[in-house]
């Protein structure tokens, strides 16, 4: 099974879970694939920016991130499921973001 078939199968699984009707068209598979590639490449490029902090850390992280991505291969369907329109998910992420931001600013400004 090559990666394209693998991703197509995953998309079908996600569609079945969310109860989305309609067949998986060529165009939706392509767009899923593009999103996948975009997100992976920007994540990897983003990790490269850590070189300003520490070069060895950057190299180690790139390998780790690459491995994690490879294990969890179709990220986009999962990501899309997380970013749905239900209020529960939204307010959950809002509160999580608030906590992260407050602690990051507190930690970051004392350490960076």
């Amino acid at each position: 099974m090559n990666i394209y078939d693998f991703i197509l199968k995953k998309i079908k699984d996600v569609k079945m879970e969310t109860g989305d009707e309609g067949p998986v068209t060529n165009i939706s598979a392509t767009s899923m694939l593009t999103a996948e590639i975009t997100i992976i490449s920007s994540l990897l490029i983003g990790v490269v920016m850590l070189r300003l902090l520490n070069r060895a850390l950057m190299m180690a992280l790139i390998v780790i991130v690459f491995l994690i991505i490879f294990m969890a291969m179709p990220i986009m369907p999962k990501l899309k499921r997380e970013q749905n329109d239900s209020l529960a998910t939204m307010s959950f992420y809002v509160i999580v973001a608030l906590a992260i931001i407050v602690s990051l600013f507190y930690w970051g400004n004392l350490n960076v």
Partner: protein
Amino acid sequence: MSTENLLIPLMIIIPITCALFLNLLHEKSRVVKIISVIVALLLPTIPLLANYGIQYFGGYAPLAQNPTIATGLPTFITGTALNIFHPAITYVFGSAQKLMITILGFVALFAIFISLYEVKKPSGVYIYLILMGVASVMAMLLSDDIFNLYVFFEIAALTQVGIVLVSKVKNNYETALKYLIVGSIASPMLLLGIALLLGVTGNVNITDIVYSIKTGLVDPHSPVLLMACSLIVFGWLYAAGLPPFHTIKSAMYSKALPTGAAVLQAFSVFTFVALGVIIIRIFSYLHFAEIFILGISLIAMVLGITMAITQTDFKRLIAFLAVGELGYIGVGFGLGTVFGITAGLFQAVNEAVITALLFIGFGTIMYKTKETELKKLGGMLVETPKSALLVLLAGLAMAGVPPFNAFQSKLMLVQSSLNSGLPEVAIIMVLLSIVTFMTFMRAFHTIYLRPKPADLVIENENIPKVTIVAMVCLLIICLVFGLYPQLATNYLQGLAMGIA
């Protein structure tokens, strides 16, 4: 102050008074039309005519500039920093504000015109909401007083909800309620940030807060200030619709009418700028704040644009693209150099125009077919060749193709990120530009170029002339800024130099 700055408060007062007046006129559609046209024309002309200046409400200039009041006061007032603090709510109208308010005025002007001519009976309530929102966003851009900004921020949030409520799109009430609930979590946090800032510095005037921090009247690294910074940044995320608020913000755009969406995104862009400028002005000494802005902008770009690709509803697709493009502005702010901030502000101006153009352009499809699902659409090129061409040009502009304006601003952003020693940011920006273009082309291909599905019904035959004229005007603005970017950057540079 002298009377020559009378136009500064009028920018806010005229839309608000007319809005309140229009709300009373329910049935008299003729009067509504006339008043709306006049006010809409006034929106961009007043800022164009107004001189630069500072407006002190009540006439209370700082004591140092106001010798008539200052004489006779005890020395513990005139001898300390109180002498230069601003006792009045201060509005600053500089060159950057002039350009941004004019652009906002133009977007609102075209939105009002189109909404007046697309419906048989213009509704005073809709125009009321648009005018109210425009006035409050203008006030946010002008205001130098952080609490005054918060008040207008809340008014803007309520008008945004109102614009969605009157749209009659399916499920708009649910989305509006979600936005209100999420907003009611986020805006008290912004208020809390303002409260902490007030508690530390004893001031709500931003110039005075900056003065207190720069001259060491307060300890710049006190934990309370860090907390205030984080809470204000959180409020900024909500106002602009950056992650984690990108889902609700894009849902809001997609549940509004096309004209409403065009205005809503302009509100978000300029609220982003107004609050972002304040954050940079007050907290630029915190290196981490800039890193955070850069990081969240990159996340917004990636999440917004990748979510846009996977959408099946073209309004939601454009909405996610609009959220993603906001990240470009943030990158400019996050780099923190004069050139970078100028580029970010320039990108904000460009994006407000281009996204409005895209929303209005794709709105013609909704006007003709009452359909927003991509898979049910097709073959519209034959039906609307003129607007198809305009939409295509708008898409090219959004992706940053020369000779349009976004090319210039994105080029400046790339250059400034290279100058700051961050080529990775430049690579991500270019990559996402390409993906933006691909996303746009996918929507364009399905709607216009693909063979027309058999069950697609055309409900309205002709697109109103006003819509086409408005789109051409917006495109001309894009072209002018694309060919002569100095026109915009000269205006914006002053503000960027002031805050960097």
